[in-house]
């Protein structure tokens, strides 16, 4: 899922300067699951903003990365569009007054919403990465950078592109220190060496021959931005 962190209130107010009546819209996807952009966080943020401006509508939308087909919205005004995409919303009647929308979705959701509305849409969060919550600790960890050329089949299901600080392709570097990445010594964090983990996993699986094979340089042609793919037939 997508991991996010709230922007500082000062930065949000800076972006919203000029608007006095705003709508705050959470997202029903990843950020709701991780409680960074769901109903409770929308209410919390609206309260803080309330000291500086009027939050006339607040609520949570469906996943902002996929709200609806554009044709379903054709001919509708912004207020009607927001009503259509909202999952739960307070201040329906005041939507016409809204001058700006603040979204707690990830960068994908914010951009999608911004593309659907005439009103300016601002992000309340910084989007961090695709990952998961580590069960055994207090960390969310990044697991996939979306490199476009997945190597998990050769690395015991552990991604070196994401989890090796140098994105190396052919085994641990000489900086590995008690099973930790050398960057751990600079930052004081305990960052496991991805390649030591890969080595251990492959050894356990009896597949060390995967480690013995020279892996080709990654193609950055597959991960150059901006990327797009053609929608496959039958896809939703």
């Amino acid at each position, binding site marked *: 899922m997508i991991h996010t962190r709230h922007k500082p209130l000062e930065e949000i107010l800076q972006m919203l300067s000029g608007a006095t009546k705003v709508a705050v819209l959470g997202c029903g996807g990843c950020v709701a699951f991780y409680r960074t952009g769901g109903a409770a966080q929308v209410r919390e943020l609206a309260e803080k903003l309330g000291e500086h401006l009027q939050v006339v509508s607040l609520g949570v939308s469906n996943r902002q990365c996929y709200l609806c087909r554009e044709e379903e919205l054709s001919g509708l005004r912004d207020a009607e569009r927001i009503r259509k995409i909202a999952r739960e919303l307070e201040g329906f009647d005041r939507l016409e007054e809204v001058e700006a929308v603040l979204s707690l979705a990830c960068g994908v959701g914010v951009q999608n919403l911004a593309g659907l509305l005439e009103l300016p849409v601002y992000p309340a969060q910084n989007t961090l990465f695709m990952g998961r919550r580590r069960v055994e600790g207090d960390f969310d960890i990044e697991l996939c950078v979306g490199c476009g050329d997945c190597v998990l089949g050769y690395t015991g299901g552990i991604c070196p592109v994401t989890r090796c600080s*140098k994105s190396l392709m*052919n*085994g641990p570097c*000489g900086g590995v220190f008690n099973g930790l990445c050398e960057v751990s010594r600079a*930052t004081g964090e305990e960052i496991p060496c991805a390649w*030591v983990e890969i080595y251990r996993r492959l050894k356990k699986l009896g597949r060390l021959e995967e480690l*013995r094979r020279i892996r*080709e*340089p990654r193609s950055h042609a597959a991960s150059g931005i901006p990327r797009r793919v053609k929608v496959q037939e039958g896809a939703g």
Partner: protein
Amino acid sequence: MKVYSRFMESLRSSRFTVSGEIDPPKDANPAEVVEQVEALREHVVAANVTDNPIGDVIMCTLATCVIMQQHGLEPIYQATCRDRNRIALQSDVIGAAALGIRNVLALTGDHPRMGKSRDAKPVFDLDSVLLTRTLSTLRSGRNLSGEELAHAPEFHIGVGLSPGVEPIEAEIIKLEKKIEAGAEFVQTQCIYDEKVLERLREETSHLDVPILPGIAPLRSLGMAKFMLANVPGISIPDEVMRRLESSRDLKETAIDIAAELVSAAKDYGFPGVHIMPVGMHMHVGEIIERSGVR
């Protein structure tokens, strides 16, 4: 197999081969390079030039190598993957070869987070195995885009090894890949423990490539403690720590300890050593003399 350098010629002979290391200055003063060259020239067959270790900015490898050549010491050009993508790496080593550089050592490189340029973008487009193979490809007369080179660069390809890291099997597998990719010599991270020399011998006995254990004199107890905290996989025996602690003349003790390791490396059958003088360039000759290897 052709021999392009004095260093490789020495490795192919039965002579015990000693390489040294030059630390480029952080400013534009060539005299600092010349001074180190003059200290080493009579004692080592060639010397490495580091590539901005831990990402701290110093004089570039190529310029330092050229100054060395002008003053009669053969360079071993260290290329790392930290700051350069495959375009810049190929371009640099082709240029180095055109300037007469005949030894290139392929390394991954430290993460920039380790030093004073911690916000710099880490490149790592290639890794040490892929850089090794890239050097082999260039030498065979082709670049990575598949174009033929009428005049292929002529250099020998070396690689690094961290002999103390765990799991050692992963490190040895990586070394095997480097050899498959074309590595012709190996220089290791510094070793202070004869047990590590012994283990290195055992772990690499199946490999047909000259391995030069890295030896760096320990100038003080503080340096020893720093190395223990900062160099991965390093071990320094208690006895060595005690000798530094009780030493009345640290310079003499440092030379003695280093000389004993050089001698031990020869006894374990290594074809030479790589001495990293870390500021003790003036005493490299003394270390070799006391070791009795010549």
